[in-house]
């Protein structure tokens, strides 16, 4: 098996986070990103001169406009493509930049207005050879939800069940959101509410889909050593692995489901597929809570099976009976996730991991949380520890 560098284990840490979520019609994406940056600096006890690296994803403003706005020059800047699957790689890049000495502290910053000029989401669908979630607008195959729905359909075809089996996911995350003062969607959700929510793309209903909101998010990554001098306890980056990609890894699905050109088989991750655990020196059993990309509820099933928390087809039963709720066997998306907390390209998922591991989550705190995994269906992951 590929040998992964354990030299990266716990060498870098997240030292500051900032997050706003909601409806900010009077603010631009730039204003939201600057505000989140200010919150993260304050959280870390750092000043802007302490930050010499910047990573941004490309919804909203560009990296150079941000730096102009905050009056800072950096020696490492990067701007990537804004899709949720690229947040883990961006965090990993920040860690590698710090570990290699290219920058002392890297801020990942994002500001977003859900309906703002210049967003790419719609035109992407006309890409050559289908859109980034398999979209094909001439055939009415529209939006990311198409990719999630067609993957869910194959999952239920192979393993039994139906869209109704997704109810415990939406309900669990809504319960978590009710304990989160920042969450955008907190009204109670019963099983009946879930089943009565309208079809969007069958087998997915409205409550299987996240809704975009406005917001800003920032995480500051620095060396473990420097993080220990910051205001809040450091949260170490212990292990990581990349987005797995190619014909067998179609977006919004799991290998083996037979979406688009994928082969059909029962996916079980091999040791090769799980190298982040080796890097971090932990196993699935050590994970106190899981954070996974939940723009659509079936992605939670795929995340669980991708990392071997459940065998093929077993996640749809595992999620029942409170197992993924706070106090359950494996709490997932304790902030409410993208489904109920909100969505700033997914950065808020990482911010929840950090706040839980600092033990600052109040009524939704995972008791004695030591290790958290962010892990998503394409295999990208970051393992954090306090």
């Amino acid at each position: 098996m590929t040998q992964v560098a354990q030299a990266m284990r716990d060498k870098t840490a997240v030292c500051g986070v900032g997050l706003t979520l909601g409806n900010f019609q009077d603010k631009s994406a730039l204003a939201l990103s600057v505000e989140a940056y200010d919150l993260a600096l304050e959280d870390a006890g750092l000043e802007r001169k302490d930050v010499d690296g910047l990573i941004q994803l490309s919804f909203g403003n560009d990296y150079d406009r941000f730096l102009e706005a905050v009056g800072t020059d950096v020696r490492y800047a990067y701007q990537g493509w804004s899709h949720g699957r690229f947040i883990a790689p961006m965090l990993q890049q920040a860690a590698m930049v710090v570990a290699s000495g290219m920058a002392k502290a890297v801020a990942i910053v994002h500001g977003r207005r859900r309906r703002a000029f210049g967003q790419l989401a719609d035109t992407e669908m006309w890409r050559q050879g289908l859109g980034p979630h398999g979209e094909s607008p001439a055939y009415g195959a529209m939006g990311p939800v198409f990719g999630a729905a067609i993957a869910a359909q194959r999952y239920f075809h192979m393993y039994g069940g139906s869209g109704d089996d997704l109810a415990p996911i939406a309900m669990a995350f809504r319960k978590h959101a009710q304990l989160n003062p920042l969450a955008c969607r907190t009204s109670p959700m019963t099983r009946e509410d879930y089943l009565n929510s309208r079809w969007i793309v069958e087998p997915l209903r409205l409550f299987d889909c996240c809704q975009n909101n406005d917001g800003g998010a920032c995480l500051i990554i620095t060396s473990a050593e420097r993080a220990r001098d910051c205001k809040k306890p450091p949260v170490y980056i212990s292990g990581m692995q990349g987005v797995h990609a190619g014909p067998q890894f179609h977006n919004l699905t799991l290998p083996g489901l037979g979406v688009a050109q994928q082969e059909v088989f029962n996916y079980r991750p091999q040791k090769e597929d799980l190298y982040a655990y080796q890097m971090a020196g932990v196993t699935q059993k050590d994970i106190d809570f899981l954070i996974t990309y939940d723009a659509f509820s079936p992605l939670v099933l795929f995340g669980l099976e991708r990392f071997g928390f459940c065998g093929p087809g077993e996640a749809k039963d595992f999620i029942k009976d409170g197992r993924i709720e706070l106090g359950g066997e494996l709490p997932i998306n304790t902030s409410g996730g993208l489904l109920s907390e909100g969505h700033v390209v997914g950065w808020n998922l990482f911010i929840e991991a950090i706040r839980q591991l600092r033990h600052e989550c109040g009524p939704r705190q995972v008791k004695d949380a030591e290790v958290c995994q962010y892990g998503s269906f394409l295999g990208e992951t970051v393992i954090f520890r306090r």
Partner: protein
Amino acid sequence: MEPSYKVVEEKTGRYLPVIYPEELPFWEGARKHEIILQRCNSCAKSWYPIGPACPHCFSMSFKWDRMSGRGTLHNYVVFHKPWTKWFESKVPYAVVQIQLEEGPRLTTNFLDCAVKDIKIGMPVEAVFEDITSDITLVQFRPGKK
């Protein structure tokens, strides 16, 4: 036929496919009511989406070849939310992924079949929908066993 970069037909509001230069033989075939895909001169396999090399053996040498138009319904979803005004009279409609007997899978609609009667594994056959004076969509409908 020329490449086409128009994403919507102004008169009707219908979304159109963007036709990239290297896809012209496929769209010219569709106009003649045939499915024309690439076939590798080295390993004899076909593939989709259309691309510059054989993804199976990475040969750059291929010909354009007519597919039988037969296959099975591999997967489907039903759109209930109309994305634009044009779709309001179309919902609920199915988007399907069809496994051609030659191997590649196409994403299309499913015609001449109520959405409740769609079953994964059912045999299908190609049908062609002329949507503008130049553009024809490859579609599918229930086929013979």
